[in-house]
């Protein structure tokens, strides 16, 4: 089978045509090392600084506050470990949430093994943190608050501006993992009082293996990768110019097109959500009904298991993802779905469809036609569903 309808854009996106065209010259023609003095290297240097400006503009930062990394995970690790190490004489407490990406959670676990204390805020049934709870967990030794901008599974958007205000009021640094948000929802680090922000190229039509971290001027961060003087000595390594150019272009395009594209996606997303909920009994929407990413649809179907759904979808050329334990390889269903209070069984039967610019109304209609059949086919095999049917009868 080949994939005909790709609805897993939260996992990764294809590189956009304009981005592809922009990066091509940086492999064989403008290959110079940006740190050198000769002519061909100047092209690299210029491209690097242009991309930095594009990225900065997209999130309301200053150009010199952007540092390129190899992706969202590296940016997350750098933010947490970098601030923790830089401020270790000031305090050892970090506040984050139970629904962060593993790049945050596993880094926090590492920090806990190394003398730091971490508060994992719970979330409500829609996946939102409670601001009072955040504020009351602040201690004198709190050095960092890290709350993701938008969740990768259920799409819930946090009240980032409010969090920023609380952090500022208490003089605590605020990091946000905006990997799912950059290019998809409006971000302004100044207005939202964000001190550090992570992003990743391949979530918005840029290449994989490139990311950036915004670090507000004056915020102390210990480097994660030591070596050469690149990125103002904050991140060593010969610059991935093609990747950097691609990220810059992707951010620029996404920002410029955001309002139009969001309108289009909201329409498709809500069609998809309401269509499924209508057609399939025992289904529920995960995440916030309105404060959610414009392309995110995450629905749980009781009595069935996610991986089976993905395989049946794949068989008809549809790519999607699930929070099922069976797809994670870890035997635990998604920690995010557990955190919003889903019972094990229901978390198992979750399906995430994430739309982006490649998706059309036709795609949505096709999926809306097929999903009820697939769910029914699996339910007909399910002993749990049998019980329900029997009970009713």
């Amino acid at each position, binding site marked *: 089978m080949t994939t005909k309808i790709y609805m897993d854009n939260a996992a990764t996106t294809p590189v956009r045509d304009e981005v592809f065209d922009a990066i091509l010259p940086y492999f064989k023609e403008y290959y110079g090392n940006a740190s050198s*003095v000769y002519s061909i290297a*100047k092209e690299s*240097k210029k491209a690097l600084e242009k991309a930095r400006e594009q990225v900065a503009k997209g999130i309301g930062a200053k150009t010199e506050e952007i540092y390129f990394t190899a992706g969202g995970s590296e940016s997350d690790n750098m933010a947490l470990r970098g601030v923790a190490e830089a401020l270790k004489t000031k305090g050892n407490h970090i506040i984050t949430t139970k629904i962060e990406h593993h790049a945050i959670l596993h880094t926090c676990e590492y920090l806990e093994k190394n003398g730091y204390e971490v508060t994992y805020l719970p979330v409500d049934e829609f996946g939102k943190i409670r601001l009072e709870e955040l504020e009351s967990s602040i201690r004198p030794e709190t050095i960092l608050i890290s709350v993701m901008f938008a969740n990768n599974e259920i799409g819930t958007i946090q009240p980032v501006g409010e969090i920023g205000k609380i952090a500022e009021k208490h003089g605590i640094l605020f990091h946000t993992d905006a990997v799912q948000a950059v290019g998809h929802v409006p971000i302004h680090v100044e207005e939202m009082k964000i001190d550090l922000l992570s992003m990743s190229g391949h979530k918005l039509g840029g290449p994989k293996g490139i990311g950036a971290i915004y670090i507000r001027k004056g915020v102390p961060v210990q480097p994660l990768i030591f070596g050469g003087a690149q990125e*103002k000595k904050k991140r060593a390594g010969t610059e991935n110019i093609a990747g950097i150019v691609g990220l810059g272009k992707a951010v620029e395009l996404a920002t410029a097109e955001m309002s139009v594209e969001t309108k289009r996606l909201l329409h498709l997303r809500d069609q998809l959500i309401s269509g499924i909920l209508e057609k399939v009994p025992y289904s529920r929407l995960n995440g916030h009904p309105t404060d959610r990413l414009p392309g995110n649809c995450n629905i749980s179907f009781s009595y069935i298991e996610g991986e089976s759904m993905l395989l049946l979808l794949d068989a008809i050329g549809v790519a999607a993802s699930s929070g099922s334990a069976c797809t994670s390889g870890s035997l635990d269903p998604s920690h995010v779905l557990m955190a919003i209070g889903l019972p094990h069984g229901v978390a198992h039967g979750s399906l995430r469809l994430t739309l982006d610019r490649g998706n059309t109304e036709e795609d949505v209609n096709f999926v809306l036609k097929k999903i009820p059949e697939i769910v029914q086919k699996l339910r007909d095999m399910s002993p749990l569903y049998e019980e329900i049917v029997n009970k009713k009868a």
Partner: protein
Amino acid sequence: MEYSEKVMDHFMNPRNVGVIEDASGVGQVGNLKCGDIMKVYLKIENGRIEDAKFKTFGCGAAVATSSMATELVKGKTLQEALEVTNKAVMEALDGLPPVKVHCSCLAEEALHAALWDYAQKNQMEIHGLKAPVEDIDELHQNENED
């Protein structure tokens, strides 16, 4: 890091390279830290700089500032020559990259050293001129922080 067109012009075609055999004053200074050296020769007649020449061991910026500094002082009185500061030289070159600011100090100090040599030889005092130092880097320690 990128040099201005003026800097590149003065680097590629440096003015006043060479020595003045019967110089009225000669000054040599070195930046011990980055290892660069500049030597300036002045020909002074009736209190006016008639000719200036230099030799420089250093980067593009060092050569260009040497060239520009010697151009600027020609025809000036001793007092006017003191106004050819590193800042003036840099401005005349349309600026230098931040990491190269210290190179322009080399030119100013070499010029001052040559004037000092002239004053010593002629037992006179030039108002505002101080004795040259060994390592100019000490003087300008904090000027090129990023």
